[in-house]
């Protein structure tokens, strides 16, 4: 990885509880690196340790062991935090305040420009320009989320850590948020996204990590994760013999002319294609089958853990 790192976690362990309560392991040796300027999505089932990881990342919780560095520094360092924008999953906002008052407070604590004009622009950017005079207590969940996002964007941070940023936001609003995040990426910010909405992660992030049992099970570029290593999508010219193709090991796809076949190695793939051609089918297209993120997640979570995890569990 050539670019400097925005997030660097090595061997992170976190165990909650103690004394009289049952000890609960949230992270079991998590390793993760995110380069600056990258859009990284963290996905995983409930209880996988995603929120714990984010809390450790921001110095809100401390790891039991392991090391974490944020933008090359200590996550608890004031100067490092000044360069970070964070949107928690459930942001509690002061009900009696107006959005500009809340943002002005965050700007003061962050030590960044909180002029009324800038705050007004920021509110317009997240779609709250017309609601600047209203009290936050009367806001819907989506509006609160937008305000939280505005607070995270204050001071143009180098790293944005967003926990479920589009939770409660309507579909059109989600598109606006995606556009906004793309703008932030465009100016060079790093994006660390934790979202249950896999389609959201797919659309925004270039790299994804799958977290389960407190450990990153799979991690890589989205296209690498979603491409099947053994299945191919094949298209034949019209007029092929469907029964013959089925007998040759091909499975019909959803679209007419579309078929699937298995080929663990290039030799096996070509053997399958040779069988199809012998049956009179004319090949027009062959490509690795692409799974969606949901399938990748299911596959990763259901597959047996790697040996290191099994040993630790034992």
């Amino acid at each position, binding site marked *: 990885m050539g670019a400097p790192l925005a997030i660097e976690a090595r061997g992170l362990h976190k165990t909650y509880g103690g004394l009289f309560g049952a000890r609960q392991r949230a992270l079991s040796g998590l390793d993760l690196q995110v380069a600056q300027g990258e859009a990284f999505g963290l996905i995983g089932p409930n209880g996988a340790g995603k929120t714990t990881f984010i809390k450790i990342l921001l110095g809100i919780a401390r790891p039991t062991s392991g090391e974490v560095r944020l933008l090359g520094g200590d996550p608890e360092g004031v100067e490092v935090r000044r360069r970070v924008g964070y949107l928690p999953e459930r942001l*509690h906002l002061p009900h009696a305040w107006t959005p500009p008052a809340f943002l002005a407070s965050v700007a003061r604590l962050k030590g960044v420009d909180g002029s009324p004009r800038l705050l007004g622009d920021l509110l317009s950017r997240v779609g709250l320009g017309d609601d600047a005079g209203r009290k936050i207590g009367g806001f819907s969940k989506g509006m609160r989320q937008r305000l939280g996002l505005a607070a995270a964007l204050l001071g143009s941070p180098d790293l944005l850590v967003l926990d479920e940023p589009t939770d409660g936001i309507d579909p059109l609003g989600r598109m606006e948020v995606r556009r906004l995040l793309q703008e932030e990426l465009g100016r060079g910010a790093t994006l660390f996204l934790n979202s249950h909405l896999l389609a959201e992660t797919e659309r925004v992030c270039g790299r994804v990590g799958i977290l389960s049992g407190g450990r990153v099970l799979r991690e890589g570029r989205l296209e690498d994760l979603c491409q099947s290593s053994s299945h191919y999508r094949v298209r034949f010219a019209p007029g092929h013999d469907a029964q013959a193709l089925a007998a040759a090991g091909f499975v019909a796809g959803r679209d007419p002319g579309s078929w699937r076949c298995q080929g663990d190695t290039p030799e096996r793939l070509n053997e399958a294609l040779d069988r199809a051609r012998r049956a009179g089918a004319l090949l027009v297209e062959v490509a690795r089958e692409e799974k969606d993120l949901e399938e990748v997640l299911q596959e990763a979570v259901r597959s047996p853990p790697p040996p290191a995890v099994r040993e630790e569990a034992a």
Partner: protein
Amino acid sequence: MRTTLAVAADLMREAMKRKWFLGLAIAITALLVTLGLSLRLDVVDGALAATRLFGKVSRGMTIQAVDVALRPVLEAAAWVIFYGGSVFGIIACADFAPKLLSPGRIEHLLALPVRRWELLVGTFLGVLGLSVAAALYGAGGLTLLLGVKAGVWTWRPLVAGLLSSASFAAIYAAMLTVSLWARSAAVSAAIGFVVFVSGIAAGNRHTLIPMFEPGVGRAIFTGYTMPFPRISSLGSAAASIASSQALEVRSLGSLLLGTLVFGAAVLALGAWRFEQKDF
């Protein structure tokens, strides 16, 4: 320091939007305005000749120097500000720390460039600021009223008001610290009242001690009340100062020092806990 003061100022801004504090401000203002409009003090050659409240002349008054005549009024006001202010503060400020530590808020604050101790001290200073503002508003209003009505200008009620804030600061330090173990407004208020009552007992230790059996009982009572600030002694001192009477306590300085040490120690314990805690 800038961050600490920003946290304190935010807490005060938030408090001013709350019904409790709006109610207190309205109540103090209403009382002062009512007194201002209905109280008439007839001062002749520095002596209070007659007092009229709602147009009725107070009977049974002897003519005496106006500053002497007003002493009971100032003393009563000091008692009300001291004890009433403490009780009001314990109830109204009990949920500040639990709300600050609530999920979704503390994570957001801790992710900002704010050190944990700054957040804790800022919260403490914010509440202290509220207490001082309320005490000075009440005592200052009364001072202004008596100054205008009777020509008696005295700084003493203001000092009494500040003493009540000093006492409440020690109580609130305990309330804030306990919130870091149990995030509950009820527990915070309960601890506030425990410190308040124990502090009253500590100030009256020598009066109360004969009520305990000599030996273990007295030792336990003495040991228990020893660490607490002597709140009732501070209250007496505030009343004496307000009414220009001789202090009953031997040293106001040592009383204040004891209160400061208690508050600082409890707050240091809270800061230690805050630094260790995961959210």
